[in-house]
């Protein structure tokens, strides 16, 4: 039994003279979703390209499913699924044809894509050409294509980028469903809310380095500030007060405000991953 499905140690990668990945180390276990968070050019996509065998690692070690990674290794590539940021589907083919073709590349003879198409809600448009699909439909098909071989490892590069909330939600549900089946998922995103909602652990990557790697809750506890925002009506005007819940006098202050006649609202707030990212890396997404 392999504990870490993805095991990366001190990975470096350079494009000519530009070092895109500078010694990153992490692991992803079976059924775990690891969110890779970082701004454009942070090294997220390069890391995925190395892990999916598209680029040869410069130095360091990478193993997928217990096997040292090599470029063009059919054994590893038959057990991974990749969803690219770019919508690189065969537009002049239908969804059904796209999935059957990719299943054929994985050596799955007589593959019936209907169950997968139903899962991504494309069964009714299965025979329509992809060129006529909306952005959300294409993205759902991209995810379906990545899952056509029922992979042990799923690499998702910005899977909900530019999608409407409904499409984003359906894709998030799919990702969670796949992880529950035991697939290790490496997810890159700019969307902190999405990372928070999906990821078991998140890695903040910036300038090719992982600055922190932990569960979202631990990060919030460690780096965040819990606050309560209180609105009070006084002498015909509305006053707002922010109380830090981490301070020792927070209880007394809150009690006093709750007893105030003019109390309008109390909202508790916790730090977002975005706040923590900015605090740790010193830059926004």
């Amino acid at each position, binding site marked *: 039994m392999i504990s870490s499905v993805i095991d990366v140690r001190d990975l470096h990668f350079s494009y000519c003279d530009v070092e895109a990945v500078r010694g990153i180390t992490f692991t992803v276990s079976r059924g775990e979703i690891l969110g890779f968070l970082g701004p454009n050019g942070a090294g997220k996509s390069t890391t995925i390209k190395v892990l*999916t065998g598209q*680029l040869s690692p410069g130095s360091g070690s990478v193993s997928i499913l217990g096997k040292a990674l090599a470029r*063009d290794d059919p054994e590893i590539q038959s057990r991974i699924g990749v969803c690219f940021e770019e919508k690189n589907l065969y537009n002049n083919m239908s969804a059904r044809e796209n999935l059957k073709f990719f299943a054929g590349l994985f050596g799955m003879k007589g593959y019936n894509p209907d169950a997968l198409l139903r899962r991504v809600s494309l069964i009714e448009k299965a025979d329509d050409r992809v060129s006529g699909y909306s952005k959300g439909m294409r993205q759902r098909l991209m995810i379906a294509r990545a899952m056509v071989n029922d992979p042990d490892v799923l690499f998702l590069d910005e899977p909900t980028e530019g999608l409407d909330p409904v499409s984003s939600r359906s894709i998030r549900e799919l990702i969670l469903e796949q992880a529950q089946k035991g697939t290790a998922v490496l997810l890159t995103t700019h969307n902190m809310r999405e990372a928070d909602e999906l990821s078991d652990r998140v890695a903040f990557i910036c300038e090719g380095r992982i600055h922190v790697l932990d569960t979202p809750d631990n990060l919030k506890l460690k780096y965040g500030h819990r606050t309560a925002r209180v609105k009070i009506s006084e002498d015909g005007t509305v006053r707002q007060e922010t109380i830090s819940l981490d301070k020792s006098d927070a209880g007394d202050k809150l009690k006093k405000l709750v007893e105030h006649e003019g109390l309008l609202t109390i909202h508790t707030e916790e730090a977002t991953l975005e706040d923590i990212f900015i605090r740790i890396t010193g830059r926004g997404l």
Partner: protein
Amino acid sequence: MSLHRILVLMGRDLSICPRSPIILWLFAMPLLITFFFQVVFTNLFDSEPVLGIYTSQESVIADSLIACDGIRVISAEETELAEMVENGAVDAGLILRDSFEDSVRSGARPELQYLISPEGSPAGSAVILLLVLDELRSLENRKTPLEIIVISPDEKQDLPLSERIVPSTVLVVMIICGVFIPAFMLVDEREKGTLAAVLVTPVTTGEALLSKGLLGFCLAMPITVFTLVLNGLSGFDMIALLVCFAVGTAVCNCIGLIYGTVARSAKSLYTMVKSLNIILVAPAMFYIFSGWPGWVAKLFPTYWFMDPAYRVIMHNAHLPDVLGSLAVALATVILLGFVVVFLGRRMQNRLTEA
């Protein structure tokens, strides 16, 4: 290397061919090129010999020839007829003056003006001449007054332009299809990003490139043979010719893969094809314009399969006669194969670094 994956890749490419305007254009190209050359150099759709006749009065010979099956007769004025003969609109021209038939009947030996077109079919003009002689015999009621000497041309410079152009047409079609199909399919997939998607499956770069090359081979070969049939070429060692075509198509496919791995976009591929294909088809020009020095043609890589094919078609050469040239062409395939492997690796890096 998995044959199954190569076949799956080829199957997809073949299935989308009818949906690709570029590939459809390549299928239509033999018709268009043949049509163009036929219009320019020969008489389109004329499978039977064409005779132009000028008669100054009613003529028994003209009437009999018009009634003849197997030839087409066009009546024309004397000056017009001379022009038709010159530009190849007719295979031969016959001028029958007022007194000609009476002189023949009276037993005299009058001069017969029979004009042979330099651009027409020699076989056609010979057939017509035999018919004319037959009519003369009937008119005179005695043996043929003329001696016919048939000279079979066996040197390429002796062949009319219309015949020299046909094998060149076939070979040009083979080069264009053989180079363009794999190049276009590869660049199209790179541009749309689908090649990157394919390469994260168990498909290796080598398998992807080989599938495009084989696709080019499987499409270019029938298109070339179709062009051959369309141009009515026959009567030679077909096996030898198919071997020449197969080796030639393989050379073209390798060149196509080189184009496909080097070109960054469809636009740059078109520029490449437009500027470099002239080098590939250049040896064909040496057959069309037979006065050009033949040694120059040998400098071009495509010469080594074009020349054997030309010799098989035009001079009825057999496989042992052309093996030397084909061996050079095969060595070119192996050499180009190494170049494709090297450029394929470079392409994969560029693909992911983009």
